[in-house]
């Protein structure tokens, strides 16, 4: 497996080198994209295909909008990009002479032709509004298209504000399909997805290429009366491209009808949910679909692993930061407090009481109080963790110091060691096992509690755990919980080494 990947990688690099070497004789082709995920992926598809077809490609990604891209295309700053029929219709309506109809795709294609732009056939998917249901429920009720909903008036709808308000959406939809449903609520789009998952609603509106469709296993109901406006994607390219780089233009035509909604949704999901790079997602798609071998990083088991590793490294570093800083501060504060407690009975009881009270404050409450002081991010979390780590250390320092036999203290006194020297040379070394026991407890609690960092934007292992709890995803929870547990073990082990190193062998008795 590994060696196979290595070969692929080497080949990939090789082809890269080759392509660079031949760069001079190659036609230069530029493609563009709008600033949303789907468009960027489509732009990368054009980029890869062009490269494969021997062009020297450039992808001007995430440009400012339809107008920018269109003007760049007409001017020749870019040679091709992907747009949607709905948008194109609007665009053309202002460009063509009055009286010319641009309603069908054929109309559009004709109009484009006059502007020296080739509009390809549909790429294959329609990114528009639709209604969706959980696949399992739709299956059970035998619903595949919107008309089928008519037979199930008990279904609850949760739809977004926009869908509710748009003239071409909910205001007309029930009439068009004669839907009898009474329970129709507007709600946040994301909450609606969760509502579906928890079956508190059964139908929601969505975009046909929403990444969440795959994630939540939804079925997109067929718009069998053609109610929703169509937003089919098509490639727009300059006519001269076919002359300058015929192979590229040819290759782009291969995209016609190549990407269905599911494929597009899948790619978007990979970017949005799995955080893959658009270019890699596009490359993977082409390699599979067209049997190409565009080199890419970040897909396949190795890449999965790398991506996981990347995220893991990030949360680990964040978590370590929270733990290291707060624990260090806590140790540096709690040991002196413990010493003071042991020195003076009344003061000691007070300190222990105060530290105990701090410990009872709920983490959310501490965080709430910290925000005005530290804002969001790591610092309030560190402050909270700091407070939570004090008690075990203070108490065990106190206990360790007060349990030293009187005779030993007397020996030190009588030797003429001062208070501070006695503390440093005799008391602390003797109390060390107890202190370290407290530090270990504090460290473990700290590692566990540091997951609250996620509440307040400090990241750490709490982030996947929170997401996991929200999405009821055990694997995601484990992605946070397992490393947290491991970290706790490592921290414990680390302090065991400290213990072995710094606790005098003279004290290491065993039962």
């Amino acid at each position, binding site marked *: 497996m590994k060696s196979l990947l290595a070969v692929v990688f080497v080949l990939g690099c090789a082809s890269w080198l080759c392509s660079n070497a031949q760069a001079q004789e190659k036609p230069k082709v530029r493609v563009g994209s709008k600033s949303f995920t789907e468009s960027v992926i489509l732009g990368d598809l054009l980029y890869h295909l062009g490269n494969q077809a021997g062009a020297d490609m450039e992808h001007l990604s995430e440009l400012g909008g339809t107008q920018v891209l269109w003007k760049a295309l007409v001017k020749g700053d870019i040679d091709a990009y992907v747009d949607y029929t709905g948008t194109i219709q609007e665009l053309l309506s202002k460009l063509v002479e009055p009286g010319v109809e641009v309603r069908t795709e054929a109309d559009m294609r004709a109009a484009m032709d006059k502007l020296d732009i080739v509009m390809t056939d549909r790429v294959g998917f329609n990114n528009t509004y639709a209604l969706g249901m959980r696949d399992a429920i739709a299956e059970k009720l035998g619903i595949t298209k919107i008309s089928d909903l008519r037979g199930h008036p008990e279904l609850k709808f949760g739809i977004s504000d926009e869908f509710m308000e748009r003239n071409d959406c909910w205001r007309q939809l029930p009439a068009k399909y004669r839907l009898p449903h009474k329970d129709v609520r507007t709600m946040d789009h994301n909450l609606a997805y969760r509502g579906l998952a928890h079956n508190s609603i059964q139908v929601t509106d969505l975009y046909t290429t929403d990444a969440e469709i795959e994630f939540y296993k939804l079925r997109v109901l067929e718009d069998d009366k053609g109610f929703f406006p169509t937003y089919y994607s098509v490639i727009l390219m300059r006519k001269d491209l076919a002359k300058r780089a015929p192979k590229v233009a040819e290759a782009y035509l291969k995209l016609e009808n190549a990407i269905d909604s599911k494929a597009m949704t899948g790619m978007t999901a990979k970017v949005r949910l799995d955080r893959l790079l658009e270019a890699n997602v596009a490359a993977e798609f082409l390699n599979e679909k067209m049997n190409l071998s565009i080199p890419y990083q970040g897909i396949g088991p190795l890449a999965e692993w790398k991506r996981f590793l990347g995220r893991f490294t990030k949360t680990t570093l964040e978590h370590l930061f929270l733990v290291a800083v707060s624990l260090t501060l806590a140790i540096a504060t709690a040991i002196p407090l413990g010493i003071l407690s042991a020195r003076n009975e009344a003061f000691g009881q007070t300190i222990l009481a105060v530290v105990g009270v701090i410990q009872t404050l709920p983490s959310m409450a501490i965080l709430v109080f910290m925000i005005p002081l530290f804002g969001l991010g790591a610092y309030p979390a560190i402050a909270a963790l700091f407070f939570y780590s004090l008690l075990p250390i203070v108490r065990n320092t106190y206990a360790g110091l007060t349990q030293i036999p009187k005779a030993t203290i007397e*020996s030190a*006194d*009588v*030797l*003429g060691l001062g208070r501070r*020297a006695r503390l440093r*040379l005799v008391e602390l070394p003797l109390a060390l096992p107890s202190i370290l026991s407290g530090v270990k407890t504090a460290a473990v609690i700290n590692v566990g509690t540091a997951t609250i960092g996620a509440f307040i934007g400090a990241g750490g292992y709490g982030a996947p755990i929170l997401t996991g709890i929200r999405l009821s995803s055990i694997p995601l929870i484990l992605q946070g919980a397992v490393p947290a547990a491991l970290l706790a073990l490592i921290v414990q082990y680390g302090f065991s080494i400290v213990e072995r190193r710094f606790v*005098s062998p*003279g*004290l290491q008795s065993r039962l």
Partner: protein
Amino acid sequence: MFSLNNVSKSFGNLQVLKPTTVDFHTGESTVLIGPSGCGKSTLLRILVGLIDADAGTILFDGTPLTVQNIQQQRQRMGYVIQDGGLFPHLTARQNVGLLASHLGWDQAKVKARVEELAELTRLPRVALDRYPSQISGGQRQRVGIMRALMLDPAVMLLDEPMGALDPLVRFDLQEDLRKIFRTLGKTSIMVTHDMGEAAFFGDRVMMLGEGEVVQEGRLEELIQNPTNEYVARFINAQRIPQS
């Protein structure tokens, strides 16, 4: 060196020390003897400041001992207790060298002094790098003596310092310590239950009993002129091997 004026001490309703006025002179070796529980250790612990007397004043070298100066003064005293009172987390060597190192002595000097003392007390070299729990009772006691001698203090307070030493080591160490104390003019106060030791060491032997000084003088004087029957019996109780 020490001047006690009407010093007394009780634990609960047990009066361990009745108001006592006594001087310990510079350069003199005093041996305290007396029945178990009569307050010998308590007296030493008062001198070294581990116990506060209930009443009375104590002058050390002419100045009263106070909480403020006690720590400084202690560096001029060596105090040995029976089981050594060693720090369990330090090796014998570290126990002996602790204060000197803390006061900033050069490591080589510490090492030399420790080894000199080991010689004096006849402590085997191997024992030096063991922890207290790993050496024999007699060895621990010698480490305790070494630690007290380390800074070459002006006063030695010894509470049954050689009770666990074998006769030979004890004989030699008695000899050596007396020589040191005599030549360097050190003051010493020693508690012992061994009359031979008391006779050998004590410029003055002080018999305590019932919380007061019952009799004092050289041991021969006590043997010859005991104040009372009890002193006589006490001094002569020790069994002597018949040869």
